């Protein structure tokens, strides 16, 4: 039996276990060692593993780029980017090298790196502390994009991410870090690329991940219909089969995400539903997403991030279409 943990504690315990299990794991990033990270995700790890947990200079390209070299020598880098938007300062390293080193060397060098980063709104942070750029990451061949939505999911997915032979962008929803506790099993591993049916139902399928999964589960409680909620968990690889099986059953589909609508993952998921389940659809796929605007400062943030009301409206639109 496992302990009841918050998501942030699940991150920490997983890192601790993987540092213990594999001498190749090295954890580094801005403020991760002495201060234990700005969210305290890595608190105490440097005390136990002083030779493998490091503070890094404030240099995101550097943090991402040195991972390629560490991996080439046989290590398993697990860097933290303090907030997802700061990854933009290292985006070129991610796209030009991390994601491509395997194919560029025809498999002779790989980059088993897990880049952890908090993402998303809801914590009243500064500008550029609340973005959700998952579609951009999923668009880069060679990467895997992973979203935990609860403490237990965090443990299972982060364990698999760190053990994966290929690079993982691990997006941690900041507002779930401390929002609730959950029993987290020991030795928990969730394979990447497998979706989960978070709630079973027959009338409509709602697809949501990360923090939006929590909002969706709240919204569903207000709806007098049988709603199936699917958490894809990884956006690349995407478990198309679980999604389309669900849509074939319900005939209706809603995709929810925090990121802006244009070019977002909802478009990709809609396409796959069209390709695999078009004749089962009784309504167009409904999108509930952020708007095509920069995430506003926190005085207007609540108007931007989809909440239970907007999700509920989206679900009703899908249910009522005829």
């Amino acid at each position, binding site marked *: 039996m496992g302990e009841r943990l918050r998501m942030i504690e699940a991150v920490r315990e997983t890192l601790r276990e993987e540092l213990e299990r594999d001498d190749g794991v*090295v954890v580094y990033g801005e403020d991760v060692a002495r201060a234990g990270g700005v969210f305290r995700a890595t608190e105490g790890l440097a005390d136990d593993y002083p*030779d*493998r947990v*490091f503070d*890094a*200079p404030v*240099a995101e*390209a*550097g943090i991402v*780029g*040195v*991972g*390629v*070299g*560490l*991996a*080439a*020598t*046989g*290590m398993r*880098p697990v860097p933290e980017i303090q907030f997802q938007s700061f990854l933009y300062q290292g985006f*070129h*390293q991610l796209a*030009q*090298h991390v994601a491509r*080193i*395997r*194919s*560029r*060397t*025809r*498999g*002779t*060098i*790989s980059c088993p790196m897990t880049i952890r980063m908090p993402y998303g709104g809801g914590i009243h942070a500064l500008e550029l502390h609340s973005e959700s750029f998952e579609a951009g990451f999923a668009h880069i*061949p*060679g990467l*895997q994009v992973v979203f935990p939505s609860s403490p237990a999911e965090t443990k299972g997915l982060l364990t698999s991410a760190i053990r*994966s*032979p*290929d690079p993982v962008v691990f997006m941690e929803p900041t507002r779930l870090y401390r929002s609730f506790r959950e029993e987290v099993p020991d030795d928990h591993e969730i394979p990447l*690329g497998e979706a989960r049916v978070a709630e079973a139902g027959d009338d409509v399928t709602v697809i949501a991940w990360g923090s939006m999964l929590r909002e969706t589960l709240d919204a569903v409680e207000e709806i007098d219909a049988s709603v199936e909620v699917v958490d894809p968990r990884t956006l*690349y*690889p*995407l*478990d*198309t*089969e679980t999604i389309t099986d669900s849509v074939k059953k319900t005939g209706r589909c809603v995709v929810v995400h925090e990121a802006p609508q244009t070019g977002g993952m909802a478009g990709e998921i809609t396409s796959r539903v069209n390709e695999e389940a078009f004749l089962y659809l009784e309504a167009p796929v409904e999108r509930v997403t952020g708007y095509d605007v920069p995430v506003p400062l926190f005085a207007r943030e609540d108007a931007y991030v989809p909440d239970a009301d907007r999700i509920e409206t989206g679900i009703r639109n899908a249910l009522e279409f005829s």
Partner: protein
Amino acid sequence: MPEEERAQFTIRSVQVLSEDESVDEELVPSLSDEQLLELYEQMKRSRRLDERAVSLQRRGELGTYAPAIGQEAAQIGSAFAMAEDDWIVPSFREQPALLTRGTPPHRILQYALGMEEGAEIPGGEGALPPAIPVGSQPLHAVGVGWGEALQGRSNVAVTYFGDGATSEGDVYEALNIAGVYDAQTVFVCQNNRYAISTRLEKQTDAETLAQKAIAAGIEGIQVDGNDVLGVYRVVQDAIESARNGNPVMVEALTYRRSMHTTSDDPSVYRESEEETEWEARDPIVRFQVYLENRGLLDEETKATIDDRVESEIAEAIDLAKEGREEIDPADMFRHVYAEMPPELERQYEAFGGEVDG
């Protein structure tokens, strides 16, 4: 507090074989006659590979190619100073260094023929593939040098980049992080005076590029990059320093005698007087005179080396072209992930590939 001076620095610049063919005997590195001849032959091999590659490109048989003509001493002298299990982290113009490290010339040609096979690392150790973006790869060398240190090994990483790369933020991040983590890394900046068409004076207002290391707290040193003995000496010292956790940046002063790549026409931005001036400082000519003066190189030996190089490069060209005949386009699906994800499998099958199981 009164005003005071807090930091001062000097940049040393080293030359062993001078342009007038005089030699600083005290600085001559201890290399055997065989090693000296090997350095010479390697420079000839590299020059010939580049010349043949450019003419193949002109005939439409090769893709874009970045010749290193004029930079042989900077690259071969430095690569020759590396131990067998040290790492090379190259940019896209490192044919001379790669040949010195044992990369067969047909692989370099395969890459220029548009085949990833040329970037495959035999054995998976000791080298990273050519980096096409400018200045991104020194960070990988820092990761390698840091990773080797973390695992208690003494191998170093030697990375190559040009003068233009020093304007990229990544190069500064690399120098800075190397210092902080005591990474076992040597930075070889080949200052060949042009970043495509942009001359050094428009690249930076700094007096030397080596001094960019000083801001990161690591040693910076200059060497005459057309003096193979000087480069060998300086980089050998730098590697020893890096093995002990003290990274070094070496600025090799050289000149790209040819074009940036085969897509570029230097006559648009370079005066022919300047080119003639640097032709007289050619690294191979200078070293050849030195070897002749030492009695190590006569006409017969030169001819033997030239013949050997010529037939090796001819064989390499044939081998690379044979490889091109055999490529399987479906191969592009196979090395993106360790295990092919389902969405990629679907695309692969639609392409006509066969998925196992």
